[in-house]
């Protein structure tokens, strides 16, 4: 097991190295520069002074070496170019912790409700509860997040005035983002759990269990659910890392000061250090959560052996 983990961490580092390098050269190859957010052309000398100050006058490979040296020796991702004076690392941590609040709650709510609905649908296959759940699931997958967010904001904040339109700091600010963010998760899990359960229920060992006279409840609890949940773990990888990286659209609409904002805006602003920072952060989270899930898999499912 220890050997497995060490090996995986080694792979993780290689993956991250490749991600950083590829991102670095890709972002420098797109036209434009970090002065672009000033939305105008500045005189040549002003531009040159700015370039020199931030080391952008050096060649890309030279900039890459400096960046890598700082990253490896000090774990330093540098300072944002768009927001002078702010460390990329600080921004990532502060904003990720904000994103994680609605994100984490939405994931919990989404998974709980999604699994419950999935079970209900599977047990009532081709009867009305199944149809209702699948209808909700289709809505959840097809209705774009921004539509749901805007509609909820309009009715609950503008018409009924029970919740604030935007802002951050009170529990009221979290309610709408959680509802909106969990909707898709509910839909995904409901469908996934349902189809996995149906799959498992058709297996021979279920028939065996039933033939042995195990009660329906116990068959479901001990055999069906346990086996049906395992594939759901794979889904979790993306979602757990997703709660920290936030959602651009939901955060924008409800004014949540999370990390989602930086994923889109840093690219538009050509905020090089922030682009790298956000990418490394997302990649690191993803591979880390994947490792945890892989370990969990091997512990929960004896069919999967760690080699």
């Amino acid at each position, binding site marked *: 097991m220890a050997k497995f983990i060490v090996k995986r961490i080694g792979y993780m580092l290689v993956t991250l190295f490749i991600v950083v390098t590829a991102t670095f050269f890709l972002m420098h190859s*797109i036209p434009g520069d970090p002065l672009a957010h*000033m939305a105008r052309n500045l005189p040549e000398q002003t531009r040159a002074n700015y370039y020199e100050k931030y080391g952008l006058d050096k060649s890309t490979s030279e900039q890459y070496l400096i960046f890598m040296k700082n990253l490896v020796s000090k774990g330093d991702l540098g300072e944002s170019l768009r927001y002078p*004076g702010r460390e990329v690392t600080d921004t990532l941590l502060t904003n990720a912790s904000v994103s994680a609040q609605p994100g984490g709650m939405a994931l919990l709510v989404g998974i709980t409700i999604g699994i419950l609905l999935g079970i209900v649908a599977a047990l009532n296959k081709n009867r009305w509860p199944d149809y209702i759940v699948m209808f909700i699931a289709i809505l959840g997958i097809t209705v774009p997040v921004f539509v749901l967010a805007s509609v909820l904001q309009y009715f609950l904040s*503008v018409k009924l005035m029970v919740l604030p339109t935007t802002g*951050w700091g009170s529990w009221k600010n979290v309610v709408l983002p959680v509802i909106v963010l969990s909707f898709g998760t509910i839909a995904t899990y409901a469908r996934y759990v349902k189809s996995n359960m149906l799959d498992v229920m058709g297996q021979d060992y279920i028939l065996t269990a039933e033939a042995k006279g195990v009660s329906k409840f116990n068959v479901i609890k001990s055999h069906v659910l346990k086996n049906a949940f395992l594939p759901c773990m794979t889904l979790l990888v993306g979602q757990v890392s997703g709660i920290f990286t936030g959602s651009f659209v939901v955060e924008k609409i409800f004014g949540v000061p999370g990390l989602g904002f930086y994923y889109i805006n840093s690219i538009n602003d050509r905020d090089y250090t922030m682009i790298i920072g956000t990418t490394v952060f997302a990649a690191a989270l993803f591979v880390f959560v994947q490792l945890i899930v892989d370990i969990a898999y091997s512990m929960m499912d004896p069919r999967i052996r760690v080699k």
Partner: protein
Amino acid sequence: MKKKLVAALLAAAMVLSLAACGGKGDGGSSGGSGGSDGGAPQELHTSLNTEPSTLDTIKGNDMYGWDINKNTLEPLTRLVEKDGEQEREGAGAESWEPNEDGTVWTFKIRDNKWSDGKDVTAADYAYGITRTLDPDAGSPNSFFTAPYIKNGQKVVNGEVGVEELGVKVVDDKTLEITLESPTPYFMSITDTRACYPVRQDIAEKYGETYGSELDTLVFNGPFKVESWTHNSEIVLVKNEDYWDKDNVKLDKINFAIVTDSNAKYNSFESGAIDISSVGEQEWVDRFDKKENAVRVDTKQPAMRFDFFNVNDKLFANLNIRKAFTLAVDREDMAKTIYQDLHVPAYWWVPEGISTGENGEYREQVEGPLEKMAKEEKAKDLLLKGMEELNLGSDPSKITVKYSLSATTQWARNYGEYVQQKYKDILGVNIELDFNEWSTFQQKTNNGEFQMANMVWTTDYDDPMSMISLFTTENSGNIPTGWSNEKFDDFIAQASREMDETKRTELYAQAEQVLFEEGCNICPLVNERKISFNYDYVKNLNERETTTTGFKYVYIEGK
């Protein structure tokens, strides 16, 4: 029972609103006695469209930081609104005086305090001005003052040290600025960010992080920042140490940072914010019907325009450029594309800019394109130009690449409109080229374009800010590649002319040359800003170039 209650409430409301009306007459225009309305808390809720990049006036260049800077720091002077007219008043400077030939300006610094208790001195202003020009600081604001202050450009270029700059601290209360040459509109620059005070000790103590967090900042304006939650909210409170605190009525200003425009409108609709600018017609219509919302239309000193690459084979020809410029039906564009939010522009110097005491420039000078449009026909000019270039007489053989600086749905609709119109009027083909802003900027700077679309907003309140963009020296700003000696000469003369009327005349002549001999730009619309505020917010500025921020605003009758 219920009915009676409603009736009683209505009656009470009427009495209250009458009382509020009564108060308006004596409190409103004088801007003085707003505080007498004891009931309403003096709190203003407004919004910013995005997080300011920094609150450091040296590094910050966006308008969001500027909105905060204006309210929390004291520039040398401010452009103040009084009964619809603008007037320059002393702010950080109590008074100022030029020498005889207008090259040395002496500012008497007012007694004022920083929020940490220290006195405001001439050195704070000198440091702000000098540091902005210091190449080490890499400030994007150096272009404001570099051409005017003695040795400014040389300092920016790194040719001489900052000690050589024409900024001198005579004593704690006296600041002396020497100019390269007499600059009649120099005072218009004294309230730009390049002339804001910066405390050297604080800026040096925090170094690169100065301006990025609240605890690295000190204030000396009407308000000070109380809290700053990044990407969420900035709260200002009244600065009790401010020299003019008796004229500041608001106790608190809340800037919510709302990046989504629909969320902003929803916030206004629900009353969470008191002011909102509105860019979409459907929301304008909706707020127009809102009972207690007041609509304010502001002339924006900003132009939306196309520009031509004079080094391009086709657009090297003046007649072709004129043809493309005259072919635009500006009335139709304003109506179809902008639903009359913006106005047709037959000029380059936009509305909302004034020439010193003479007031609004556009009221004194007719738009040059208006006359041209009456005298010449776009199609004839095109054919003439084609003949000169030996391109035959079939416009449909011409294809022009039209570069846009956005990839949004709006840009696509706009592009199609342009395509259709040029096809209808000139018979030429337009190929659309959509770019992200950064890509667009790079392409146009490298001259890899034929015709492109852009917006430009003025930097300071004088026509010079707009018209000087096309001198040979400044041609990098809007890279059309055009250069004209006669034009340069008018601008050079205007930059020295101390007489406002003569200077206006020189601007008018330069603008004439720009269109008659250059036509390297094709103005489309002059921007307007429509904003709404609830009627209990009083004394908001009505002009875009005013630099008092929320200093004189108050709440009454809420």
